[in-house]
C-alpha cells in the first residue's frame, strides 16, 4: 500500500503554497473558474474557490454553488489522476461536496445537474475500483476492489434514477407544442437532452456493472441483457437524438461482450456510415470498437492496418482512452501476426508496436498492465551501458530512466540516473537536478534499496528545502527509513528509529501545509504510540491538518492514544482525568468513522470496520454495550452476506467477537449464542476453531474481570448467568462439536462451579474420543485424554463426589505416579474434603507441605510449587493457624519475591492482607 501510494505520489503533480486572500471581481468568477478547469489547472481552481469563499461581494447565488463547483473540480481531478489511489481520494472528496450541495439545495435549478454529476463520479469511482482490481496482488484484494466497484455502480445507478425522475418531471412541465422560434423551445430541447443522457448513462452503468462479473457467468449474462434492453429501448424511442445513436453504439458493445461479433460489427458499420458531422466524435469510438471486433475475429492483419489508419486520422490523440486502447490493440495484433511475416517486415512492424506500447505504458489506464507485460515480452531489457548514457543529453537520459520506470525496471532506471547525475550538478540546472535526484530516490525505494533511497531523499529534502521536489522526497525518505527498519534487524535499531523520528519531524515542520507534512506527522505519532509515549503520539496525530485525506486515520490513532492515556490515569486513580480522556477517545473515533461515512465508506470498508471495532471495545469497557451493538450490528449484517470478500474474513471474526461480548454484556444470551455459531462458521477449521474457543473464553473472562473491577455486582451476575447459559447451549448442541469445543466448555463450566454439568461434558468427551480411532491416531491423543480424565476428577470434586474423585485420581496416579497435575489434583481433593468437613485439614496440610518439599529443588521452581505452599497456607488457616499460614506465605515470598507469576503474587498478597 505504501509502495502504491509512493508510486502515486511520484506520478502526481505537486501543488504549491496558497496565497493570501484577495478581492475577487465577482463578474469574472464563474467564467474564470471554468477557464481554470478547462485548462486543467485544478489546483488553482480549488484555490480560487477558497478565495471566493473568503471574498466579499460574491453573489449569493454563486456562493451557494461553491461546494457544487468544488465537487465538479474534484471529479475532474479524479478522472485525470495518474494513479487510482489519488483518483479515489478525489472522487470521495467530490462526493462529500456534491452531497452537501444537494442536501442543502434540494429544489435549486442546478440540483438535477449536481445529482447527475454525483452519479458520474460514482460511475467513475466504480471504474477506478476495477482498474485497482486488475492491479491487485492477491485474489482477496481483487475481491475487495470488485465489490467496491459493484457498490459504486449500484450507487451510481440509484443517483441516475433520482436525476432521471427530476429531469423527467422538468421535461414534462413544458407544453407539448412550442413554436420553434419561442425561447422555451430551446430550453425544452435542452431538458430532453439532459433526460436522455441520464437514461443512457444509467444503462452504461449497467453495462460496466455486468463487466465486474466473470465472463460466462450467469450474473454477467443477465446484467448485459438488462443493459442491452435499455440501450435498445433508448435507440428505438430516440433514434434521431444523439443519445439514441450513442445507445445504438452501446447496443453493439453489449453484443460484442456477449461474443456475438456479427451483430456488433453490423451496428458499428451502420453507425460509421452515418454522414452527420456531429457524429464524428462518436464515430471515432465506434471505429475503435469495430477494430476490436476484427481482432476478436483474428483478422489481425486488417486490425493492424486499421489501427494505423485510426492513429494517422487522429495524430494529436495518443492519450485518450480510445487511443490507448487502439495502440495496445495495434501491438497485440502485430504480435499475433509475427509468425506470418518476413524477417525484415517483422522488425519494422515490431518497432512500430514498441512505439505504440511505449505510449500506453506512460499513462495509468486499464490497458497499462497488459501493455507493460507485452512490452517486456517484445522489447526485453538490455544492460545499461555507460557509453550509451554518456552519449545522451541529461534530459534524454532522464527520459530513458522514466521509460524504464514505466516498465517497472527500477534497477535499470537507477543505473541510468546514476550515470546521468554524474554529468550534471546542482549549480547548472537545479530544477532538473532535483527532479532527477527525486526520481533516483524513488527508483531506489522501489528497488528495495531502502538505505540508499533514504540517503538520497534526505539529502534532497534537507539540502534544498525550497526545491520543488524536496517535500515529496521527504515522503520517500520516511518510507525508506521505515522499510529499512522493518527489513533489517541488525545494527543500532534505537538509533535508526530516533533518526527516522527526527527526519519526520523535520518534514512536518518544513512543509507544514502539505500532505507530505501530514504523512510525516502520522509517522511520528505511530512510532510514539508503539513506544508507549501516548501524549506525544496524540499530539502528533492531532496536528494532522483537517483538510488532509489522512485525517480520519489520524483521529482514530489519536483515539487509541487517548484511550491508553485514560487507562494509565485510571491505574493511578485519577478518575476525572481518565473519564475525560475516555470521552475524548470516543469522540475522536466517532469523528473518524463519521468522516469515513461521509466520504462514502460502506459497512464493508475495512478502516471503518476496524475503527468501529475499536470504538465498540471502548464502549464495552465503559459499560455501554448498547452503543457497541449499534455500531457493530449493521457491519455484522453486511459482512454476514454470502459474497463477503476473503480479505474481510478476519475483520468479520473481530466484529462477531465484539458483538458476542456486547450481547453477553447486555444480557442477550440467545443473540450471543447465535454470534457463537456464526463465529464458529466463520472461524475456519481445527486449530483455528480451538484458538477461537480459547479467545472466546479469554474474552468472557475479561468481561467478567472488568465488571468485577468496576464493582458491578449485578452486571457480573448477569454476565455469569449469560455465560453459563451460553456454555450449556454450546454443550447441548449436538452438531458441530469437536474435542476442543467440548473440553473448552467443560473447563469453563468447571470454573463457574458447575461441577455436575462439567462432569457430564468430560464423560461425554471420554466416551466419544477414547473410542475414536481417528482421534487416537492423532499425535498426543493419549495425553489429551489423560488431561480430560484429570478434568473429570476436578469436576467430581467440585460436585462433591469425593469417593468417585478419590477412586479416579488413584487410578490415574497408579498409571502415572509422577504426573504433577494428578498430584496437584489429589491435594485439591484433600482440601475440598476438609472444607466440606469430610476430611481433615491436617492431612491436607501434610500433603501440600510434602508436595512443595518435593518441588523445592527444581530449578526454576514450577508454579505448582508456589501453588502447593498457597494451599498449605489455606490448610493451616483451616486448622485455625492463621499466624502460621501468614508466616508460611511471607517466608516463601521472601525467598522468591515474584512467587512464579504476577497472578500468584496477587493471590499471596490478598491472603496475607485478609489474614491481617
Amino acid at each position: 500500500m505504501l509502495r502504491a501510494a509512493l508510486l502515486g505520489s511520484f506520478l502526481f503533480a505537486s501543488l504549491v503554497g496558497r496565497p493570501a486572500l484577495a478581492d475577487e471581481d465577482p463578474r469574472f468568477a464563474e467564467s474564470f473558474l471554468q477557464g481554470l478547469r478547462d485548462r486543467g489547472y485544478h489546483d488553482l481552481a480549488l484555490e480560487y474557490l477558497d478565495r471566493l469563499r473568503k471574498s466579499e461581494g460574491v453573489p449569493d447565488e454563486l456562493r451557494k454553488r461553491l461546494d457544487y463547483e468544488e465537487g465538479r473540480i474534484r471529479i475532474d481531478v479524479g478522472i485525470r489522476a495518474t494513479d487510482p489511489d489519488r483518483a479515489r481520494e478525489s472522487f470521495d472528496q467530490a462526493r462529500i461536496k456534491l452531497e452537501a450541495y444537494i442536501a442543502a439545495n434540494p429544489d435549486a435549478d442546478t440540483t438535477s445537474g449536481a445529482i447527475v454529476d454525483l452519479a458520474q463520479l460514482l460511475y467513475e469511482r466504480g471504474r477506478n475500483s476495477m482498474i485497482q482490481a486488475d492491479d491487485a496482488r492477491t485474489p482477496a484484494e481483487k475481491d475487495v476492489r470488485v465489490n467496491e466497484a459493484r457498490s459504486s455502480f449500484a450507487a451510481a445507478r440509484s443517483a441516475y434514477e433520482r436525476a432521471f425522475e427530476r429531469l423527467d418531471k422538468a421535461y414534462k412541465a413544458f407544453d407539448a407544442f412550442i413554436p420553434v422560434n419561442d425561447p422555451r423551445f430551446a430550453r425544452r430541447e435542452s431538458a430532453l437532452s439532459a433526460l436522455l443522457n441520464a437514461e443512457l448513462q444509467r444503462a452504461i452503468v449497467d453495462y460496466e456493472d455486468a463487466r465486474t462479473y466473470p465472463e460466462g457467468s450467469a450474473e454477467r449474462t443477465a446484467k448485459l441483457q438488462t443493459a442491452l434492453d435499455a440501450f435498445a429501448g433508448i435507440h428505438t424511442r430516440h433514434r434521431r437524438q444523439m443519445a439514441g445513436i450513442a445507445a445504438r453504439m452501446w447496443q453493439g458493445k453489449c453484443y460484442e461482450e456477449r461474443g456475438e461479433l456479427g451483430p456488433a460489427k453490423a451496428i458499428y458499420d451502420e453507425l460509421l456510415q452515418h454522414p452527420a458531422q456531429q457524429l464524428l466524435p462518436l464515430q471515432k469510438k465506434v471505429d475503435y470498437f469495430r477494430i476490436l471486433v476484427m481482432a476478436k475475429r483474428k483478422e489481425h492483419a486488417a486490425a493492424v492496418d486499421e489501427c494505423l489508419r485510426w492513429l494517422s486520422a487522429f495524430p494529436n490523440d495518443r492519450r485518450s482512452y480510445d487511443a490507448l486502447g487502439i495502440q495496445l490493440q495495434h501491438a497485440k495484433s502485430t504480435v499475433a501476426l509475427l509468425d506470418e511475416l518476413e524477417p525484415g517486415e517483422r522488425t519494422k512492424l515490431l518497432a512500430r508496436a514498441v512505439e505504440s506500447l511505449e505510449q500506453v505504458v506512460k499513462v495509468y489506464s486499464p490497458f497499462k498492465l497488459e501493455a507493460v507485460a507485452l512490452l517486456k515480452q517484445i522489447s526485453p531489457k538490455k544492460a545499461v551501458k555507460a557509453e550509451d548514457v554518456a552519449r545522451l543529453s541529461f534530459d534524454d537520459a532522464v527520459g530513458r530512466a522514466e521509460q524504464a520506470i514505466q516498465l517497472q525496471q527500477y534497477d535499470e532506471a537507477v543505473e541510468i540516473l546514476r550515470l546521468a547525475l554524474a554529468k550534471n550538478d546542482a549549480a547548472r540546472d537545479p530544477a532538473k537536478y532535483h527532479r532527477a535526484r527525486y526520481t533516483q530516490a524513488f527508483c531506489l525505494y522501489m528497488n528495495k534499496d531502502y538505505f540508499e533511497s533514504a540517503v538520497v531523499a534526505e539529502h534532497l529534502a534537507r539540502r534544498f528545502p525550497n526545491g520543488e521536489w524536496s517535500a515529496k522526497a521527504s515522503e520517500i525518505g520516511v518510507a525508506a527509513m521505515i522499510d529499512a527498519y522493518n527489513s533489517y534487524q541488525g545494527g543500532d535499531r534505537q538509533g535508526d528509529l530516533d533518526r527516522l523520528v527526527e527526519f519526520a519531524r523535520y518534514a512536518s515542520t518544513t512543509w507544514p501545509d502539505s500532505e507530505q507534512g501530514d504523512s510525516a506527522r502520522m509517522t511520528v505519532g505511530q512510532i510514539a504510540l508503539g513506544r508507549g509515549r501516548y501524549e506525544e503520539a496524540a499530539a502528533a496525530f492531532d496536528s494532522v491538518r483537517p483538510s488532509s485525506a489522512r485525517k480520519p486515520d489520524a483521529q482514530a490513532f489519536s483515539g487509541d492514544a487517548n484511550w491508553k492515556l485514560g487507562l494509565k490515569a485510571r491505574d493511578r486513580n485519577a478518575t476525572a482525568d481518565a473519564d475525560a480522556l475516555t470521552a475524548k477517545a470516543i469522540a475522536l473515533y466517532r469523528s473518524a468513522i463519521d468522516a469515513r461515512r461521509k466520504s462514502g465508506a460502506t459497512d464493508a470498508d475495512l478502516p471503518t470496520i476496524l475503527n468501529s471495532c475499536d470504538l465498540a471495545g471502548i464502549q464495552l469497557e465503559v459499560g455501554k454495550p448498547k452503543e457497541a451493538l449499534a455500531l457493530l450490528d449493521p457491519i455484522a449484517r453486511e459482512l454476514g452476506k454470502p459474497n463477503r470478500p476473503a480479505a474481510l474474513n478476519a475483520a468479520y471474526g473481530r466484529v462477531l467477537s465484539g458483538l458476542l461480548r456486547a450481547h453477553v454484556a447486555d444480557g442477550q444470551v440467545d443473540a450471543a449464542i447465535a454470534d457463537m455459531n456464526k463465529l464458529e462458521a466463520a472461524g475456519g477449521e481445527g486449530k483455528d476453531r480451538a484458538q477461537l474457543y480459547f479467545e472466546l473464553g479469554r474474552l468472557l473472562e475479561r468481561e467478567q474481570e472488568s465488571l468485577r473491577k468496576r464493582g458491578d455486582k449485578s452486571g457480573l451476575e448477569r454476565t455469569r448467568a449469560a455465560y453459563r447459559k451460553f456454555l450449556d447451549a454450546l454443550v447441548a448442541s449436538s452438531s458441530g462439536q469437536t474435542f476442543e469445543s467440548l473440553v473448552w466448555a467443560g473447563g469453563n463450566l468447571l470454573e463457574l462451579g458447575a461441577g455436575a454439568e462439567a462432569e457430564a461434558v468430560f464423560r461425554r468427551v471420554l466416551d466419544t474420543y477414547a473410542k475414536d480411532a481417528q482421534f487416537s491416531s492423532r499425535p498426543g491423543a493419549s495425553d489429551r485424554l489423560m488431561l480430560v480424565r484429570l478434568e473429570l476428577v476436578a469436576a467430581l470434586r467440585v460436585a462433591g463426589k469425593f469417593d468417585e474423585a478419590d477412586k479416579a485420581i488413584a487410578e490415574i496416579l497408579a498409571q502415572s505416579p509422577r504426573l504433577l497435575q494428578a498430584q496437584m489434583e489429589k491435594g485439591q481433593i484433600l482440601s475440598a474434603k476438609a472444607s466440606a468437613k469430610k476430611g481433615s485439614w491436617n492431612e491436607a496440610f501434610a500433603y501440600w507441605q510434602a508436595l512443595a518439599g518435593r518441588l523445592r529443588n527444581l530449578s526454576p521452581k514450577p508454579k505448582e510449587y508456589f501453588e502447593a505452599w498457597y494451599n498449605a497456607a489455606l490448610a493451616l488457616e483451616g486448622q485455625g493457624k492463621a499466624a502460621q499460614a501468614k508466616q508460611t506465605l511471607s517466608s516463601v515470598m521472601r525467598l522468591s519475591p515474584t512467587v512464579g507469576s504476577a497472578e500468584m503474587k496477587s493471590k499471596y498478597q490478598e491472603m496475607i492482607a485478609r489474614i491481617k
Partner: protein
Amino acid sequence: MSRVPSIVTIVLLGACSSARADVVSLTPTAEFKAPGNAVRGTVQSESPSEVTVKLGNNITKVPTGAIVSITYDNQPPDLVLAQTRENAGNFAEAADLYKKAAAKATGKPFVIEAALFGEARVSVDLALTDPSKTDQAIQLLEAFGRTYSKGRHVVPALEALTRLYLGKGDYAKVDETLTRMSALPQSADRAAVLRARVFSKKGEFDKAVVELDKIIAASAEGSVKRRDAQLAKAEALVGGKKFSEAETLVRNVIKAAPAEDVASQSLAHNMLGDCLRAAGKPREALYAYLHTDLLFFKDREQHPRALARIAEVWRELRQEDRAGETLDRLRKEYPRSPYVAAAR
C-alpha cells in the same frame, strides 16, 4: 409572380454596391455606433481625428478612435496578404508586402498611406525583437510622420516613435515627439499620459504621479484617458514601491471598466499582475495574468504579454512543466511576438 424578380434584382444590386464600397470597421465598445459595426461607402477624407465616408448623399464622419481597420475598395491583394502575415507575426514578410502594396496602389492615396504605415508599424515590431533595427524603424516612422502629418495614422505613428525613443533613452526626442503629438487634435490627452510615463522611465516616480493625478482629475469617469492615466499612475507607484496603493488603483480600474471591455480589462489585469509581482506576490500575480489569458485573450497585444508573464511566474513558483507549456503556447500562437524573443 411579378414581385419575385424585382426582389432578386434589389438584393443583387445591394450586394454589388456593398462589394464596391470601402468598409470602415468599428471597435465594438466605441461610443460611435453603426449597423453591423461598420460604415460602408467611399472614404472621402482622412485626418488625425476623423474619417469622412460618403454613401449616396449621406456623409458620415467616423472618429479615428472608433476605427479598427478600413478595407478599401480595389486595394491591392498584397495589402491583405501583408495584414495576414502581420497577424501571424511574420513581420519581415509583412514589411515587404506592405511596401509592394504601396507601390501597386498608384492613384489611391489612402491605400498608399495605410500600406506605408503598415510597413512602419511592423518595423517597430521587428525592432522590439531585434534592437539593431530600432534606428531603421525610427527612420521609417519619422519619414511617415512628416509625409502624412495630417493623415489618420499620424497619432499612432508618433506614439510608436515615442516608444522607440523611450527604449533608447533619448528623452529629448521623446519630448519633441510628444510635443508634436499634443498639437494634434484629440491627442493631447494621450500625449500627456505618455509624457508622465517618461518621468517614470527616468525614475522620477513622484513627479509622474503628480502629473498623472492632474490628468485623472481632469478626465471624465470611464473615459479611456482616465483609464490610461490611472494605469500609468499605477506603474509609477510600483516604481516608487508603493505597491498597495498601486494595487488598489488598478483594482478600481478593473471594477470601473465594463466586463466586456476587453481592451481595458486585459491591460488592467496585466498591470495588476505587474503590481503584485513587483510586490513579491507571484501567486497573486499569476491569477491576474491568467484573467487575461483565460478571459481576455482576444486582445492580441496584451495576451502574449500575459502568456510571457505567466511563464515567468510559473518558473518562479518552480512549476517548470507549466512554464514550458505556457511558453509553447506563446510560441505557437504568437510566433513572432517580441515576448517570445524575450522569453528565450
